[in-house]
């Protein structure tokens, strides 16, 4: 059966690059915040670290997913889904309860500090994953098991 196409080729090349940039910048930012200012805004900084972790997982799995690794496709799907839920939840909470977010996280205000790229990115990721899904090229639904 069809094993899906590599997610890091074609438009995916661009997607993984942008994910990589966010993985790097979110990790650096979270690491710095946790190391130096943790007491000031613990909730925001822990969320920054969680976001950074999700970006790392999404970057690696999107870079690896393809016929050789269907598991990576599933991991990427999970990461992008959690990422979308995260940016929607944190975005909403940061607007409703701004006092919990004295310092911005990457997902505050739906990522407005980053040109809303954090909001658009998981949507593009999920659309791309649907496009590259194993089994799609033959018109079959994704099969259970392998």
């Amino acid at each position, binding site marked *: 059966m069809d094993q899906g196409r590599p997610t890091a080729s*074609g438009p995916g*090349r661009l997607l993984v690059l942008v994910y990589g940039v966010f993985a790097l910048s979110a990790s650096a930012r979270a690491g*710095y915040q946790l190391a130096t200012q943790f007491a000031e805004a613990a909730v925001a900084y822990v969320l920054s670290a969680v976001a950074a972790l999700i970006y790392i997982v999404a970057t690696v799995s999107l870079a690896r997913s393809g016929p050789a690794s269907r598991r990576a496709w599933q991991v990427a799907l999970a990461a992008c889904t959690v990422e979308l839920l995260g940016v929607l939840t944190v975005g909403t909470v940061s607007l409703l309860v701004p006092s919990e977010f004295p310092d911005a996280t990457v997902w505050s205000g739906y990522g407005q500090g980053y040109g809303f790229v954090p909001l658009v990115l998981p949507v593009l990721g999920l659309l791309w994953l649907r496009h590259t899904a194993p089994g799609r090229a033959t018109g079959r639904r994704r099969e259970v098991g392998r």
Partner: protein
Amino acid sequence: MNSALTAVVIAISVAVGLAMVVLALLDRRPLTAVLGGLLLVEAAALAQVLWAVVAVLRGQRPDSGVIFTGYALASLLVPPVGAVWALAEKSRWGTAAAGISCLVLAVATVRLRQVWG
């Protein structure tokens, strides 16, 4: 940060980045031009970091040394890593990825200037 120098770096990286995005939209992948553009952008990033090193040796200090150093290292890494990643893709999307790398350097340069104070 020397604002004239950062303005030049931002101008170069935005110009090269947008040119590559246009080439990608035209479905082109001119290897020499893309590599040359990335080299030019890396040279600009290097000039900027060297300026900062000289400024620090002369006793100037950025507002936050740790953050500034992080952005400085990232600015040097973005063009070569972007080049390797982009040129492995043999389609217009490789050109587009190279262009986005240049635009990322422009953003990093804006942040460098802010962090310097």
